[in-house]
């Protein structure tokens, strides 16, 4: 029987294209110190440290070993967890498991990436199957572009629809002091920006960022001592899909997210997510993906998510804001990106969102995405 677990501290760096002023491990340390400060505890009160990044981007394997002094892991329990784009949510979910199991009372998790120090697409190629797919793989944007043309045809979604998402998230990012990109852009700006791979334009695409995020998970007993505003974990689900990029029938119909969110809602006792969720932090690697992935969250009839979006439901002032932090489209240090979704959801529950705070957040949903077509879902509540 699992214990109740809450997030009681969040720390993140100010994400940028290049953090010239710190090396990888110093950057990790920054996020750790900020998290400890937020939780008002010292490192001695941490039982285990879980850390992860996507190692081929920096080409430093055993990255947990090199981080040990800086992550607080010296002499402590811990492990490295790396699952590609979903690294941050897997780390969060693993932290939850560690505490829920009763084996650890406080777990610190850290996700990070120093993207400019290697070559992003070349690094990503190393994650493809070398026997079948590596030679023709066209990068993340190539895959999403080809998926988007299929999506356009099947769902009747246009480039304008995608551009509106890009605008919404970048404008949201301007309220988030940690966001990498804080762009005052319009739909016209997006449609005029450089085509990377049709239909994906420069302004449709997430950036490559350098940054780190750290969170503290605690047992019920510890959580109540540490803070008056814990963000309780109501559900955590993971679903994976097939090994080759082309195995799933329809890319943008993210069946792993359908399955994971359905299971998460059941666990959290949610029957009408559109009404019962107050905010969503969704992992959207590209503007198009936000439309497709939202459709997988059972907010409305399948294929009809555009109606909600067009009505402004997912805007900052809408009924169910999506990505008030600016999302992945503003900040993408890959090892941290998925964790930032959970962290921002926790920030919303704890009322620490500042200019990006949505009023009265009691239930928040965070998703993580990784290749190929994997999904993680966490639901947080202000009470269990």
């Amino acid at each position, binding site marked *: 029987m699992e214990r109740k677990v809450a997030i009681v501290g969040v720390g993140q760096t100010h994400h940028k294209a*290049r*953090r*010239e*002023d*710190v*090396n*990888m*491990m*110093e950057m990790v*340390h920054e996020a750790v110190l900020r998290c400890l400060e937020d939780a008002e505890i010292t*490192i001695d009160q941490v039982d285990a440290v879980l850390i992860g990044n996507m190692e*081929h981007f*920096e*080409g430093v394997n055993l990255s947990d070993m090199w981080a*040990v*002094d*800086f992550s*607080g892991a*010296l*002499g402590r329990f811990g492990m490295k967890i790396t699952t590609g784009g979903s690294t941050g949510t897997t780390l969060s979910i693993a932290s939850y498991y560690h505490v829920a199991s009763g084996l650890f009372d406080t777990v610190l998790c850290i996700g990070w990436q*120093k993207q*400019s*120090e*290697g*070559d992003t697409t*070349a*690094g990503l*190629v*190393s994650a493809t199957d*070398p*026997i079948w797919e*590596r030679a023709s793989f066209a990068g993340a944007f190539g895959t999403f572009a080809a998926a988007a043309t299929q999506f356009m045809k099947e769902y009747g979604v246009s480039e304008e629809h995608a551009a509106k998402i890009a605008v919404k998230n970048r404008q949201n990012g301007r309220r988030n002091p940690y966001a990498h990109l804080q762009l005052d852009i319009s739909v016209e700006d997006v449609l005029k920006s450089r085509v990377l791979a049709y239909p994906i334009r420069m302004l449709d695409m997430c950036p490559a960022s350098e940054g780190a995020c750290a969170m503290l998970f605690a047992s019920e007993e510890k959580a109540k001592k540490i803070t008056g505003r814990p963000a309780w974990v109501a559900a955590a689900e993971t679903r994976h899909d097939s090994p080759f990029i082309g195995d799933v029938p329809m890319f943008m119909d993210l069946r792993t997210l359908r399955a994971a969110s359905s299971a998460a809602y059941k666990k959290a006792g949610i029957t009408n997510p559109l009404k019962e969720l107050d905010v969503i932090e969704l992992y959207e690697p590209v503007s198009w993906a936000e439309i497709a992935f939202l459709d997988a969250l059972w907010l409305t009839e399948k294929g009809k998510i555009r109606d909600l979006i067009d009505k402004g439901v997912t805007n900052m002032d809408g009924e169910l804001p999506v990505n008030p932090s600016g999302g992945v489209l503003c900040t993408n240090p890959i090892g941290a990106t998925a964790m930032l979704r959970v962290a921002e959801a926790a920030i919303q529950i704890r009322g620490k969102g500042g200019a990006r705070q949505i009023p009265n957040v009691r239930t928040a949903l965070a998703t993580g995405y990784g290749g190929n077509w994997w999904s993680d879902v966490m639901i947080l509540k202000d009470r269990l």
Partner: protein
Amino acid sequence: MEKQFQDIIVESKLDIPYSYYAGPIASRFYDALEKERKILGIRCGSCNRVYMPPRATCGSCFKEMTEWVELKDEGEVVNFTIVHYEEPIHPVKAPFAYALIRLDGADTAFIHLLGEVDLGRIRIGMRVKAVFSDKNPGNILDIDHFRPV
């Protein structure tokens, strides 16, 4: 009966350039190495250990370190090995010696090459001195090797 197909090997490679920000501590260390021919360590204000290579945080105390210590360019061999096989990544041609060297003033040892030495006469505890490179690769090989004194 299943026809036997020859096992196919797919030759592949990853050719990727990396360029790491050293951070302020390492940047200062390499500046001192290149411009002043000095080797710097860093001391923890809590436990007093002097670390070489220097780093921003003392792992044991989990505290920032700011006190720089100029180390002697001499120290002792803590441990060593002789490499007898060839590998493209090796900095010099085999056979050659790697050693863990603790410079006078430091509490930690670091790995470097031993040169100008009879490989058969290397001993633990042997005193060695840094020989700086006339090229400046901008990494730990700004010190070319350590030779016996």
